[in-house]
């Protein structure tokens, strides 16, 4: 009797294992959440110091065109206007996404709908290889091949938004492609069967049914690509020219938020205005990545495929 009672009242081995697994999971999750919170707090507090401690006007920061944190302008205010960098960052991001999307979509459709297993088997490693190349290598190729090519074709120095766009195009192509393939493959086979049964040919099926159904997923893919382009620092820094000027055209040297950060961060002293101003740039980057993620979430909620 006693023995049975004990057995019933004590935790079984399975329960203990279950509990052990749960604790490990929660510890990991807790650690990650704490890490994210720390990073958010650190960047935000540093980034806001420019406005709270050094009393820089937020509006002036976002719309000013002169960046020279070490010096003051005619009114005695420090010159930190981030607009040229913000504009350049957005230009390269949007242009790269515009150029990359048709290619990525074409490849994704080919891989999921047209090429059989063999074609996919060949293309998959090609795309994965593109992901695996370190960004400094992209930058180096950009500097040695793309920049001279642009210089020969358009004149000028060759550095600028165009060179940045071309390098980023190659870098975000695999991201957009592989995510698009996933979303195209997620379209239920019954949709294809129904479309074909109604007499639609393959092109009509792809265009009218599959692409429409997968549209939210494809949009998500593009936004992920843009997020990567927005945050890329090293490769862009090598080809953009790093001139703190409002971009006048696609082939004039400019500077992005990330390239400014990588160039200057070692030369400033912690806690001084030039350093705080860089943190403010980082804060903008952080907000943008959060913004991109919010969009992705929003699209995901709105347009998920209901089976």
């Amino acid at each position: 009797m006693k023995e049975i009672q004990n057995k019933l009242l004590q935790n079984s081995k399975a329960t203990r294992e279950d509990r052990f697994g749960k604790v490990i999971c929660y510890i990991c999750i807790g650690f990650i959440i704490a890490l994210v919170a720390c990073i958010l707090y650190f960047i935000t507090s540093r980034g806001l110091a420019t406005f709270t401690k050094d009393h820089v006007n937020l509006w002036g920061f976002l719309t000013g065109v002169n960046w020279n944190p070490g010096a003051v302008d005619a009114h005695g205010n420090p010159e930190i206007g981030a607009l040229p960098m913000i504009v350049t960052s957005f230009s390269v991001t949007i242009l790269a996404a515009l150029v990359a999307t048709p290619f990525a979509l074409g490849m994704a459709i080919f891989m999921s709908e047209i090429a059989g297993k063999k074609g996919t088997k060949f293309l998959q490693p090609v795309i994965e290889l593109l992901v695996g190349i370190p960004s400094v290598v992209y930058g180096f190729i950009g500097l040695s091949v793309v920049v001279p090519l642009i210089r020969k074709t358009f004149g000028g120095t060759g550095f600028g938004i165009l060179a940045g766009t071309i390098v980023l195009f190659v870098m975000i192509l695999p991201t957009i492609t592989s995510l698009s393939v996933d979303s195209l493959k997620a379209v239920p086979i019954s949709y294809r069967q129904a479309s074909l049964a109604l007499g639609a040919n393959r092109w009509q099926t792809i265009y009218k049914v599959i692409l429409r159904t997968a549209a939210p997923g494809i949009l998500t893919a593009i936004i992920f690509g843009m997020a990567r382009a927005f945050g890329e620092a090293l490769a862009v820094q090598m080809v953009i020219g790093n001139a703190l000027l409002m971009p006048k055209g696609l082939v004039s040297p400019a500077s992005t938020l990330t390239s400014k950060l990588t160039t200057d961060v070692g030369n400033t002293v912690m806690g001084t205005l030039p350093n705080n101003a860089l943190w403010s740039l980082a804060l903008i980057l952080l907000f943008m990545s959060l913004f991109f993620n919010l969009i992705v979430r929003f699209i995901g909620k709105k347009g998920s495929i209901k089976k």
Partner: protein
Amino acid sequence: MKKRNFFSTLVMLGAVGAVLTGCGSNNASSTNGKSDASEHAAKITAVGSTALQPLVEKAAGQFQNENKKISVTVQGGGSGTGLSQVQDGAVAIGNSDVFAESKSGIDASKLEDHQVAVVGMAPVVNKDAGVDNVSMEQLKGIFTGKITNWKEVGGKDEKITVVNRAEGSGTRATFEDAVLKGAKAVKSQEQDSNGTVQKIVSSTPGAISYLAFSYLNDSVKPLSIDKVKPNDENVASNKWKIWSYEHMYTKGKAKTATADFLKYMNSKDVQDGLVKKMGYISIHDMKVQKDAKGNVTQK
């Protein structure tokens, strides 16, 4: 979808965080100074200027061969990082291309300066500019944007492309002190490493920039200023004005192992060997000295 979503958020945040915190929170663990004598095991960390880094690394290697118990770690990060870390007491030595006095946010009176080498810098141009000598006034005109074509200084009819160095970098500060003398540089491209500058100047027609002597080679053309050639002898006598010290700062007086290492940096062995081999100018060769305000006096 959701899983990937979460993961990507983390990766992105992590990447931003890693880049940004890297500069701020360099390891504060490895300070020295606890050992009573240099024979005891000790750890010295030197952080800062990337221009000085290769020399200190090599010297540290030799030093450790002779003093087995002392380990010297050398890291880059930039002059600003070096100075602020040594001021905070996070590292034993802060390497810098500039005088601590010239950086805002640094209290130079608390730091002790150890000058270990001299670097000369020369303006360099693309080979087809057709110029090999300019006056100081002309050079100033080019970098402030008043002179925009090479024919104005006796070269070919070609637009001048100015490639500047990163704002706040030691190289740029030295160049601007010697050439611009307070005038504002024209807004232009900025690059943050000697290697990239060399590559860009050698491949862009009409480009001008400036490089440390050790990076001068056949791919670019160094300019003489007022007929003075950029070479070590002219720097030593201050005929060539664009030069700066490489500093190794300690907080207060250097102690024990750190003092030994700094003494070693200043020894004949290093100054006549490594320093010269790596394209710097020995501190012993200098016939003049410069203070933090830029005043030059005969030694």
